[in-house]
Each structure stands twice: as C-alpha cells, then as structure tokens.
C-alpha cells in the first residue's frame, strides 16, 4: 500500500490503515527504543502512542507530508522516547511526593469521567469519540453509524453529550473539579 493510499484511508477513518502501518514498521520503530535503553514493552508502548499521534495529525487535516510516513512516525517515536527518558530522569532526581499527588488527583478525575463515558451506550461513546478525537464531520459520523442524515447524527451527538455532562455532574459537584 502506498503512502498516499494510507493517508486516504486515514482520512476516511479506516482503522485498517493503522493496522497496516503498525505491522509494516513495527520492527523498525521498536528497534529505535530498544537500542536506546528501552525495553520491548516500552518500545511497543511508544510506537503505539506515536501511531496514534500520527492518526490524530492526519485526521486533523492540517498535516502536510514532506517526507515518507515512516520518516514522520520515526521522528514522533524519537520525540516520545526522549520525553519518556526525560520524565524518568526527572522522577529519579526530584522529590516525587508532590508530583505524584497531583498526578493521582488528575488521574482520579479522568478515571471518573471515563467511567461515566463507559456508562453511555456504545453508540453514544462512538459518536463522541468520532466527533472530539477523530474530528469526523457530522456527515461522516452519520455515514459511519448508519444514520439517515446529518441532522439525526447532530441530534444524537447533542443528546449523548448532554447525558455525559449530567452523569459527570451527578457524581461530582463542580467544586470537586475546579480546585
């Protein structure tokens, strides 16, 4: 599959393009991490994150490719692994307590919201993810989920978002979030 075909598939939101890239460059990208003090698990983690970053950028419509996809993903992997190495280094040198406390608080808040998201039905979850993460248009969402038209998708999205807001607010008061 050529790079242009891969990008075309991603623009249509076809995850098979992601699978293709993942298989094709797995060895090359994980080798980058493993040969730079990383484990295979870390290498796989970084590579998966890099592919998702690439997916987001390609989906945003603002990506202008001046190199091959492999080169682009390689540079993302490199940056992510550098950040991870810096984070590891920082954690080993600084006092951990305060950082860990803030991280835990933030993580707990995210976990609660994710629980609420998971309480929604699969369709609501998909609509919200396609809209906020993949950046799909209402027309694309309607097509992907088999709705009759864009308005149906719009209404559905509005209701799902409202439902999620209510769920989150029912579990925590605003003051719990706004500290």
């Amino acid at each position, binding site marked *: 599959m050529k790079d242009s075909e891969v990008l075309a598939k991603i623009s249509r939101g076809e995850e098979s393009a*992601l699978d293709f890239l993942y*298989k094709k460059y797995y060895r090359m990208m994980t080798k980058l991490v493993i040969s730079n003090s990383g484990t295979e698990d870390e290498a796989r983690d970084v590579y998966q994150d890099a592919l998702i970053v690439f997916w987001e950028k390609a989906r945003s419509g603002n990506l202008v490719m001046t190199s091959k996809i492999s080169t682009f993903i390689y540079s993302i992997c490199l940056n992510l692994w550098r950040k991870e190495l810096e984070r590891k280094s920082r954690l080993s040198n600084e006092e951990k307590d305060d950082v860990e406390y803030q991280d835990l608080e933030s993580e707990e808040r*995210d976990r609660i919201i*994710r629980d609420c998201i998971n309480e929604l039905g699969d369709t609501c*979850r998909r609509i919200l993810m396609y809209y906020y993460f*993949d950046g799909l248009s209402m027309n694309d969402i309607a097509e992907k989920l088999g709705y009759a038209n864009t308005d149906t998708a719009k209404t559905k999205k509005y209701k799902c978002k409202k439902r999620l*807001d209510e769920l989150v607010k029912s579990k925590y008061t*605003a003051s719990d979030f*706004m500290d």
Partner: protein
Amino acid sequence: MAENLDYRQLIDDYLSDNISIENRTVVEHKIATEPEFKNEFELQRNIVNAIKTTRRLELKNHLENVKIQWYHKIPTGWKVAATVSVASLTAISAYFYFSEPLKRIEIGSNDAFEIAVPDNTIPQKPSVQITEIPEEPSETPVNFADEGTKNITDKPTARLEESKASPDLTPEKVKEPDVPETSKEVEVVVPELVDEFEGAQELDIEDAAGDNLNKINPVRKDLYSNTEVKTLRHKKFDFHYELHEGILTLYGNFEEIPYEILEINSSEGKKLFLYYRNNYYMLVSTEEVSPLNPVTDTTLIKELEIVKNNK
C-alpha cells in the same frame, strides 16, 4: 437559559477547534473575567480530554491485539525451510495433478476402441481391439494372432463402414464416438487363442469382404524366432516379403505349401532366412516390399541345411 446554551455551544466549538477567531476571543475573554464560565469551561475541557483519552486507549488496545509476532520473530532459516516445503508440495501436487488426467485418457481411449465380440462367435475372446492405422489404408490388414484362425480370410483392410455388413463387427459394438467412420481404418487384434479354441472356425467375415480385397492370413510366431510372421495375398505383390520392426510379412500363396523361418545368430548379428519349396531366401530388414530371391551361395546353403536339420 438560551444564553447558557449558547455559551455551552461556544465552549464546545472552542474545544473541538471549530470556532471562529471572533468567537475564540469572546470565549477567552469570558474565561478571564467570569469565574462561573471558567468553571464550566474547565469541566467541559476535562470531559473532552477524557473522551479523547478513551479513544486513544481504545486505539491502543486495538493495536495491542494486532498480531505482529509473525512479522519479526520468524528466523530466516524457518522461512527458507517453509519456502522449500511449499515449493516441494506445489511441485508434487502439480506432478500428480497433471499426470493423472493422462492416465485417465489412456484408459478411456482403450475403452473407446474396444469392441465386444458376442460369446456365440468367439467364446474365449472377450474383446477385439481396434486401433487407428494412419498409413496405407488399402493395404493395412486385419490380423488375428493365432494359427488356428485360418478360416478367417480375405480382408486386408476393414473399414468401419464396410464392417457394417459384418454380423460380428456391427457399428453398435464400436465405441468410437468422435471419429468419423468413413475415415477410420481398423486393425483387429485378437489376443492369443488357445489351441482347443474352436469358435474361431465359425468366425467368418467373408460376407463383408468385397472381391477386390486381398486375402488375410493370420500372423504366426515362428517357434525359433521372435519375429512375427504373417502371410498375405496381394494383387500387386506375389512372392514378396517385408521385414520391418520384427514383423515379417510374406506376400503370396504361403498357405498351401509349408515354409520355415530360420534364424542364425552370428557375429554380424541375427539373420533370417525363409525355407520354401526346397529353396532358401535371405530376409533383410526393409520397410519396402521386396521380391524373394533364392540364396545361391552353396556354403551358406549347407550351413542352412545343418541349422534346419538340427531344429
């Protein structure tokens, strides 16, 4: 309330990056000046971030389940072995696949040319085989490989259309669907007959033979030679012979007076001689019908006499 909805929509547009520059400025101004709006904005931003995180986790989980082990952990040796195995299997399969139909065709063609002979005519002979003879259609004989079938006469060439008149070779018995009958010549080969076979006396295809057909005599195998011998009456050739590919054909009236075939193995190879009416005739391998010329060399004649008497 409507104002509240508009603000929500503004925040949503802002977080999904679908907002105009003008509205973006409005949102940022409100965040800076209105604490309540700011709280709502933070809540919505956390929710949207959580949605994005959920999707990222979903995609990661999806990638985690993609099987990639096969793509990078198989040793090269295994790949080579697998390739060789596949190639070998393919070759073997191809061999059997392409050789089997040939075998079927061979069997099928034999079946197609087989003629069943009625039991009341030739009880010991299950079938008469008909094969196509491409050369010299008018001179190709119908042969019966036995000495005891001398009553079968006068049919050097049997065409299928002619055999329609024969009670024993009716078209219904010929399983040969694809070949036009008019262009077919047939050689009827009967397997070796047992000596006590009497049914052959009843086999008579003279009815099917026209006046112009030559008489057919059965092929015999000389007792002391591997050469097959057959005699044939022919209008054109009288007292001639043809020796080709181990088959000796004697043209002329050889039925009434006995003849002998002598085989002498010397350093020059195997030589065949015909003894007939107190004369010896040397038989040389030839594809053409040649006249029989008597041997005149007295020394050779003496040697042949010795061989003949010692048989």
